[in-house]
């Protein structure tokens, strides 16, 4: 299915951009008129994925974070967060609750949050090459479906 609308956003892995990324995705996704809770779920999941690029993928450098958001007519929102950072050696282990390589102040719950606040989470990674996280969420379409963007 073709998306109704799509944005791509690239930004440097500075921690100040965590808030920017959440706000930008929320503003775009609002075209589908999500409920307050659905929007909050999306903001939280995006924050986790973007933070991981900033904290883990590019630990000692500033790299680029690549964000793509697609909106579909059936209410599906697909969000891809990609980095060209250090990659993850063992994705299954990384996704386990409480697993972290980030030391004392990381909780190891980022992937758990992404998983429980979205409908689908896919992670693929290659050591030394980078990581792609894809989040999918279905939002309930409402009768008064608003100005949902016109097909591309």
């Amino acid at each position, binding site marked *: 299915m073709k998306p109704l609308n799509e944005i791509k956003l690239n930004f440097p892995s500075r921690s100040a951009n965590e808030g920017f990324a959440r706000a930008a995705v929320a503003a775009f996704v609002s075209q589908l008129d999500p409920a307050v809770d659905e929007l909050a779920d999306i903001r939280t999941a995006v*924050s986790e994925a973007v933070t991981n690029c900033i904290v883990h993928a590019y630990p000692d450098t500033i790299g680029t974070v690549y964000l793509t958001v697609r909106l579909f007519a059936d209410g599906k929102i697909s969000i891809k967060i990609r980095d060209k950072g250090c990659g993850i050696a063992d994705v299954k282990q990384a996704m386990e609750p409480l697993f972290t390589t980030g030391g004392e*102040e*990381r909780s190891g719950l*980022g992937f*758990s*949050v992404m998983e429980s606040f979205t409908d689908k989470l896919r992670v693929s990674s290659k050591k030394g090459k980078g990581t792609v996280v894809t989040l999918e969420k279905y939002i309930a379409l409402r009768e008064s479906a608003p100005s949902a963007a016109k097909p591309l």
Partner: protein
Amino acid sequence: MALRMETESDSLTIWLSGELDHHSARRMREEIDAAVERIKPSRLRLNFADVGFMDSSGIGLIMGRFRLMQLYGGTLEVAGASERIRKVIRLAGLDRLNVLKESGEDLSAKDDSGVPHAGR
């Protein structure tokens, strides 16, 4: 911007505000830890009433302060958290650490004037 703090006997209450993510957590953590080390309270209460957003970085912050207070033989309480923030806290199983105060137990959680209650 400094965090609002109030001490009462051996309790220290700190009001967090804004969006709590990895970016903002560092400064909050430094301020909290400096105050705890200076005052050495037996009870630290973190009030989340003015926190509009929190991701798992907030969990890291709460767990870290829990450990810090244990080190001093004190306790940690989390008050004023919205239903949204409770959702993240529950996911982390932090409710089992018994730090989360029901809003009913916590008057300041219902106070949106932002003014701390005196004389409690």
